[in-house]
């Protein structure tokens, strides 16, 4: 069992640099918003998980700043494309280990499929208040997107994979998430955002925001 991978970076614009499978223009267009980002600090990163209908699959990607590239704001994104069958039936815990940023612009290996990784136990990897908030947000009773606030969004990565893994196979494709420094309020493509700051119109509204940085009693009042 192998998983497809794609590497995006800045060449003539932000585009597909290497990959184990071709993409049509329509597929690229659907992928690109998920594998691009703006960063305020060089040590930030983002993790994205979302179903991609045109590929009949699920995207799991990590994005990093690329200050070594000539264009300010350039990023690297390494994406895994899970087939519908892999998403439904496989254990997903080991996938985070496969995501790697190019070092010294060396791109060898990104054109091949990757062997499916050994499973990893991610359940205990997140701080308890964060894990609890993520679980409540992921299982909220209505379809409105949720935002979980945490000090460092990247700490949520293992717990998000554990959550995705814990959903029954057929329900996994409906769970989408993104970690980022600033959560977008309003229209968003993600069921769950984990961020340390809120931005956008209506950011003051709190009924869909779970502030996991607060003591449990305060967090309960904020959550819907």
């Amino acid at each position, binding site marked *: 069992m192998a998983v497809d991978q794609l590497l995006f*970076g*800045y*060449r*003539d*614009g*932000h*585009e597909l*640099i*290497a990959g184990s499978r071709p993409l049509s*223009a*329509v597929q*690229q*267009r659907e992928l*690109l*918003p*998920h594998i*691009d*980002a*703006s960063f*305020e600090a060089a040590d930030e990163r983002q993790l994205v998980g979302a179903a991609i209908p045109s590929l009949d699959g699920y995207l799991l990607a990590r994005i990093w700043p690329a200050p070594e*590239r*000539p*264009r*300010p*704001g*350039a*990023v690297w994104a390494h994406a895994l494309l899970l087939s519908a069958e892999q998403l439904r039936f496989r254990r997903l815990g080991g996938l985070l280990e496969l995501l790697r940023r190019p070092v010294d*612009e*060396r*791109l*060898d290996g*990104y*054109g091949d499929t990757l062997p499916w990784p050994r499973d990893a136990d991610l359940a205990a990897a997140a701080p308890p208040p964060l894990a609890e908030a993520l679980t409540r947000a992921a299982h909220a009773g209505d379809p409105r997107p949720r935002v979980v606030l945490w000090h460092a969004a990247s700490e949520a990565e293992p717990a998000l994979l554990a959550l995705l893994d814990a959903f029954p196979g057929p329900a996994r494709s409906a769970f989408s998430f993104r970690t980022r420094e600033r959560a*977008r309020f*309003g*229209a968003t493509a993600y069921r769950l955002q984990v961020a340390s700051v809120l*931005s*956008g*119109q209506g950011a003051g509204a709190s009924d869909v925001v779970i502030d996991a940085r607060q003591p449990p009693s305060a967090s309960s009042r904020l959550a819907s």
Partner: protein
Amino acid sequence: MRIVLLGEQATGKSSLLVALYGALVNHRAGGLRLVRTVDEVEFLSRGLQAFGRRESVQRTDLDSDARLVVDVARGDEIVSVEVPDRSGELLKHMLDSRVWEPDLHRQIGVAAGAMLFLRADLAIPGAGADAFAEPLAPAGEEPAAAADEAVAWTPALMPADARTVDLLQAVLDAHADRLPLAIILSAWDRVGPTAGAPAAWLAQQMPLLEQFLGAHAGRLPHAVFGVSAQGGDFAVGLADGLVEEDPWDRAFAVRPDEARGPLSEPVLWLLDNAA
């Protein structure tokens, strides 16, 4: 007034918005005065800080929902101006795939005016479209060997002139009414004072586009502006006398009549010519 920005990546869209915001806040916008900012300006403030450090503005990512929304006063009249700042790669992929990007399509449908961005320093034959483009090949590939092989044609290989006409043909299909078009020749400082009037420069460097605009002047009334949002080239260093200036004092626009003015000139022209 909704203004849509049309330009591929690295053509100066975000730089103009940032510099325009700096001009408005610091009373360097000529006949326009800032009344209030309506939406978040965090990305604009960060851009101004970059200009202050003599660094280029960060590119706009494809997931961005950034926009400039301000109320401005022009004499006794107060006008709300909304300018979404979408990534230039959206337009690039739209032209390459020949499929409308839905959000851009919607923006064009409701816009009262448009700004079309072209890099003045890259519009010469043989130049690429992206000043930041840099080869990046998987290890082991030899670019020199690949140069001898036939390359299948794609829309990505069209010169900027033809791509822009392709875009404007699509715009005419998407926007039923008259759409005033301010053509922004960005990085104007790099073509130098000998370039002459922006419209003459466009006619010489991009004749297909110039003829297309002339043939559709009724639907696409237009004016051509040279714009330097940075005021100079940070990569080679600013000219003497500019280093100590604030970003809003370095930036300038060159009007169709060759007169130098503030960055608000294209916006003022659009306000004058909007239906």
